C-alpha cells in the first residue's frame, strides 16, 4: 500500500475527508471537484497548491456562494454534466461523499476516469460493523452517525461497501493507486493493510484510481 504523509495543513472549516483529499493533490494540478459545495476544497487547492480548480455543484445556493468567491463552479450534477468535458481534461477528478447519491455510479466513475488521469472517490462504507449490527439486531434499515436519514428520505440511493467498490473497480479495469479508511472524525484507521478489516471498521473510504 502507498505511504501517506501526515496532514501538513489543516484548513479551517474544511470537512475532514476534504483535508485528506487535499493532501493527495500535487502542486499545479488541474482538478475537477464534483459536488464541490461552497468550494472550500477548491479555494484551498488554488491557494495552497496553485491548482487550476473547477467545480460542479448540484445545490444552487452553494454553487452561487462558490461563484461569488470567484471560483469556477457550475451548477450541474455528476450524472449529466461529466460527459461534456473532453478526454483527459483534468489530472484529478474528485467525487467526495457523493458516489452513493448519483443515479449511475458505474457510469460516473467511467466518466471521471475518461476526463481525468486520476479519480479520487470518498464514500461512506455500508459494510461498517455498526451498520451490519443494526440491521442484524433490529431488522430495520440502519440508523448511525453516517447513515442518519430514514430510507424514504435518503438521497443515498446506491450505498456500497468498500469490498463492493473494489470489486467494481476491478471489474471495470481500474487500478487502485491508494486507499484509506477513516472513521467519522476523519482519523485514519489502523487497519489499512487489510481491506476486510477496513470494510468492517472504516466508516468512510477514500480511494484513488487510475485507468488500467
Amino acid at each position, binding site marked *: 500500500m502507498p505511504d501517506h504523509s501526515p496532514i501538513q495543513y489543516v484548513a479551517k472549516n474544511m470537512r475532514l475527508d476534504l483535508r485528506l483529499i487535499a493532501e493527495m493533490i500535487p502542486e499545479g494540478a488541474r482538478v475537477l471537484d464534483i459536488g464541490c459545495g461552497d468550494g472550500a476544497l477548491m479555494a484551498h487547492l488554488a491557494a495552497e497548491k496553485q491548482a487550476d480548480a473547477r467545480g460542479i455543484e448540484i445545490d444552487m445556493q452553494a454553487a452561487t456562494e462558490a*461563484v461569488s468567491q470567484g471560483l469556477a463552479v457550475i451548477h450541474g450534477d455528476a450524472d449529466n454534466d461529466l460527459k461534456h468535458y473532453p478526454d483527459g481534461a483534468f489530472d484529478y477528478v474528485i467525487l467526495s461523499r457523493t458516489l452513493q447519491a448519483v443515479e449511475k455510479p458505474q457510469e460516473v466513475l467511467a466518466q471521471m476516469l475518461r476526463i481525468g488521469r486520476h479519480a479520487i472517490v470518498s464514500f461512506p462504507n455500508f459494510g461498517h460493523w455498526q451498520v451490519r449490527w443494526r440491521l442484524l439486531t433490529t431488522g430495520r434499515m440502519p440508523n448511525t452517525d453516517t447513515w442518519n436519514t430514514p430510507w424514504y428520505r435518503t438521497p443515498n440511493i446506491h450505498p456500497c461497501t468498500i469490498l463492493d467498490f473494489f470489486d467494481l473497480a476491478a471489474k471495470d479495469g481500474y487500478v487502485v493507486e491508494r486507499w484509506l479508511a477513516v472513521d467519522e472524525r476523519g482519523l485514519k484507521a489502523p487497519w489499512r493493510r487489510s481491506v476486510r478489516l477496513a470494510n468492517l471498521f472504516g466508516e468512510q473510504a477514500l480511494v484513488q484510481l487510475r485507468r488500467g
Partner: protein
Amino acid sequence: MVAPFPQVEHQRVVLPEGLTLDCNVTIAPLAIAYRTYGRLNAARSNAVLICHALTGDQYVAETQPVTGKPGWWSNLVGPGLPVDTDRFFVICANVLGGCMGSTGPREPRTDGKGAPGDLWGTDFPTVTIRDMVRAQKKLVEQLGIERLLAVIGGSMGGMQVLEWAAEYPEAVFAAAPIACAAHHSAQNIAFHEVGRAAIHADPAWRGGRYWTDGTIPAQGLSVARMVAHITYLSEAALTRKFGRKLQGASAVTFLEDVFQVESYLRHQGSTFVRRFDANSYLTITRAMDYFDLANERGSVAAAFRGTDTRFFVASFSSDWLFPTSESRALVRALNAAAARVSFVEITTDKGHDAFLLDEPEFHRALGGFLSGAARELRV
C-alpha cells in the same frame, strides 16, 4: 402625429476608415457614441466593457438624456457597486445600427447616394452582432486598451459578449454573457417578426421613409414593443403585478373594460416610441435573428477551443425568452472546450427582465466573478 424624439448631443468617436461589415458593405466614416465611468489605470488593465441589449444604450450608469430616467444598469454599475467604477474603467457604447449617436438608420447616410442630408433609414446595410463587436473593438483600441478585464452584457448584450470572446479571445480576460444563448431561437425570431410586421403594417412607416416629413410609425413601433415586453416578463410576474384587475373599476361591466395589464402594455408602447427609432428597431432585431455563434465556426465548443478567457454564465429561472436550458447548453459547450466557466441559475419570477432588476444573488455572483478576475490580473 407623433414627432421623432429630439436629437441630443452624444459623446462619440468618428473613425474615418470606417468598417467593412459581414454583408461586405463598408461604412465610412464610422461613428461610435459611448460613455465611460471611472478611471483607466496606468497599466490599462482595469477596463470593463458593458454591452447593451436590443433597446438599451450607452447611458448605463447615468441619466438617459432623452428620457431623463436613471441609467439602465445603475443598480449594478457605479461607485461601490458590483461593477465598481471606483475600481474599474467602465465603457459602454451604443451599438452599430442603434439610435443614440452611433452610425445607424437614424444618422445621415454617408454612401453618397440619396439627396444631401438624407438619413440612412432602411437603406442602412444589414449588420450582425459581430459587426457591432468589431465597431466596439475599434473604440476600445482608440481608447488605448489592448485587453479588457471583462466584457459583460445581458440578452443581446450577452450575444456581443460571446462574439467578443470568440473573435478576440486575447483581448477578453473575463466574459460574462447573461440571460442569453449561443444563437437566437426560432421562437425568438418569430416574436421579432411579429414586431417588425407591426411596424411594416403601420401606414406611417411609409416604406421606412417616415423621417422625410418628421413623423414616426408610432402605432407599429408601439405594438412591436408591447409584444416584445410580454416576452421580457413571466406569467407569474404579470399575475403578481396585475392579475385580472381592471383599470379604474372593481367589476367587469362589458363596456370598454380595460384590464390593468392592457393599460400597462400600452404605456410601455407609448413611452418606447418617444425614445427609439423604428428603423433602428428593424435593423437590430434582424442582427439578433442572424446571431448563431456556431455558424462558420463548426460548433459553439469550436468557437472557444483553447481559450484562456474565464466565463461567468447566468440565467434566470423564469426567463422563457432565453431559458436556462440555453445557458446550460452554452456552459456545456464551454466545458467541451475546456474553458474556465462559472454558471448559476438565479431563482426569480421576474422573467427575462430580471437581469436588469435588483437581484441580489445575481449581483453578488457577478461581483464575485469580476473581483476574482481582477485579483488574478492584480488590478
